[in-house]
């Protein structure tokens, strides 16, 4: 079925089809609608979910942890300050290996206070042990929400699927929905190995774990992360085969003969593709790489992609506050360390607090990348694109 949906509506629609056992949430702009719409499905009996309107995000994710420990399929949605307030429990969800899924709408973290998109919220929780997938548009947000449940349950790790606040969350687009009956078939039931509510087989979760075994347990969690990429590949393939839409951990666009490329995450991937098309019409060999899966970092696929070009402009919608630039920039420099041939890289931190990035601006960045290719030199490695007084 083809419908017109905003990103939030599409994610709510995916949740309706998933029909999780438990959803616990607290509202926050621009993610509010996801669960608000979903709550109408609960109240109308369209889904059989237990809905918990908690009194804060900390409580919401805590309720998710409890329910997931009992073996339930659990989802929630939040943004920015809400995700920050969940921070303590994010690590617990991952440590307990609970496959909770968050529909996360990216919005900058305070201060200064702002409600618009950047990636500071999701990236601030990149080390929490959650799988993180950044989507480019409404269709992908919908599809990825469906896939994330399966990925999380196979990996026994929690996952967040992100959309860009307002840009995707409130932008109306054409979305092709999977049939209602197809989703339960695709996902199957969650089969938890243990359940806190199974009184005949009592278990302990989250017990004190000091110098004796903490490290082994943490190591096994890290190892679980090592196994995630093949799981994502497998689920993406299955999804593609069943529903005809194919996804990769790293999305390459017109990269085969590209000389210069931009690497970005989220909705900027879409804007960038339009810029690529325009420049291609002028015969310019440009390409675009989009990091779709950010945690775990898809090293192999990313190396393959970035190694295709001479010059790479890396666009980060957040700063690491380390004075070393943005997240993608640092990841790429790290994975390229052992490579004989590395592209020249320049980091463009852009769009913080929702500042728009236009097709024309991305064309300008491509023009700059060609200049770098010509001169073989980067004047300034990290720039704050479009900032007054830069």
């Amino acid at each position: 079925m083809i419908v017109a949906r905003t990103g939030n509506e599409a994610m709510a629609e995916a949740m309706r089809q998933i029909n999780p056992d438990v959803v616990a949430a607290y509202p926050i702009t621009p993610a509010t609608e996801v669960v608000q719409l979903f709550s109408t499905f609960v109240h109308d009996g369209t889904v059989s979910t237990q809905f918990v309107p908690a009194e804060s995000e900390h409580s919401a994710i805590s309720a998710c942890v409890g329910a997931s420990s009992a073996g339930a399929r659990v989802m929630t949605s939040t943004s920015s300050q809400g995700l920050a307030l969940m921070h303590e429990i994010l690590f617990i969800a991952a440590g307990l290996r609970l496959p909770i899924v968050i529909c996360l709408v990216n919005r900058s973290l305070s201060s200064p206070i702002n409600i618009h998109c950047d990636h500071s919220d999701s990236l601030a929780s990149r080390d929490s042990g959650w799988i993180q997938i950044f989507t480019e548009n409404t269709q992908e947000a919908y599809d990825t929400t469906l896939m994330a449940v399966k990925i999380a349950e196979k990996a026994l790790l929690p996952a967040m699927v992100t959309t860009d606040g307002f840009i995707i969350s409130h932008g109306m687009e054409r979305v092709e929905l999977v049939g209602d009956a197809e989703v339960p078939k695709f996902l199957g039931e969650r089969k938890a190995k243990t359940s806190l509510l199974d009184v005949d087989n009592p278990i302990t979760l989250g017990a004190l774990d000091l110098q004796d075994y903490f490290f082994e347990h943490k190591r096994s969690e890290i190892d679980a992360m090592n196994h995630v990429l093949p799981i994502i590949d497998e689920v993406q393939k299955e999804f593609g085969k069943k529903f005809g839409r194919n996804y990769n951990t790293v999305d390459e666009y017109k990269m085969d003969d590209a000389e210069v490329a931009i690497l970005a995450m989220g909705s900027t991937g879409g804007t960038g593709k339009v810029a690529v098309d325009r420049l291609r019409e002028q015969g310019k060999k440009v390409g675009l790489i989009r990091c779709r899966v950010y945690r775990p970092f898809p090293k192999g696929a990313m190396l393959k992609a970035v190694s295709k070009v001479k010059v790479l402009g890396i666009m980060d919608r957040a700063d690491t506050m380390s004075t070393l630039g943005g997240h993608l920039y640092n990841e790429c420099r790290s994975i390229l360390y052992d490579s004989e041939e590395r592209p020249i890289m320049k980091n463009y931190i852009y769009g913080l607090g929702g500042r728009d990035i236009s097709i024309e601006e991305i064309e300008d960045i491509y023009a700059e990348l060609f200049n770098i290719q010509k001169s073989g030199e980067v004047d300034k490695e990290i720039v704050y694109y479009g900032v007054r007084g830069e």
Partner: protein
Amino acid sequence: MFPYDKYLRRDKFPHIWCTGCGCGIVLKALLRAIERSKIPKDDVAIVSGIGCSSRTPGYLDFNTLHTTHGRAIAFATGLKLAKRKLKVIVVTGDGDATAIGGNHFIHAARRNLDMTVIIYNNYIYGMTGGQVSPTTPAGKRSTTSPHGNVEPAFDISGLAIAAGAPFVARTTCYHAVQLDKYINKGIMKKGFSVVEVLTPCPTYYARPNRLGNAVEMLEWYKNNSIQIEVARNTSDEEKAGKITIGILHDSDRPEFCDVYSQLSARVREANKE
């Protein structure tokens, strides 16, 4: 005409509130209460969390602090302890004060720190679009309880009294004159003062609950509230469903800053010996 202008940041207008929102009524009452207290502008600090109600300080020309959701009282606590001569006034919503910030609220009341907390109770989370809040009355509709709220509501004033607040008053936006009197009393009272004010949210509370427009909501407050002095002599049946307004509690208890100063003086003295 009351000189509101001297307290306003005129350049911050127009405000964000919907037509008929009660927030403006509380804002004006707050200014009248401060004027009556004769406290110089620079000695007043107004602290808020996040929400429609919490946007109030943005329009006010005092020392103001717009903090994070639920944490207004926590920020105000630090402010008061560091700058005791400031009159600290917190403006907050029902969600800000009793959902995400509920713990700060009861513990500040328990401590009895000298500040005035004005809680705009519109029965929902206004800013995020009218979701159910801890004060949504049972059975009432919100965007996340479209067929009626199944949970019972908090009685904010009752909660404040139980947690130890020495001054607790409740009124409504209809009773605007009473409102500034209570806010003024709260400001003048040494200790943790709570003024709960029922504020109309015509956009997200009135609409799903068919309570009419802003004027009709104010009329509803008028017809459905009962002054505490009258309530005391009214049978339970007669006052069923009515909101008790007035000064619900007024007592005296040692104030936290004083207790703290006494303790530090005592310890300092003991260390000298």
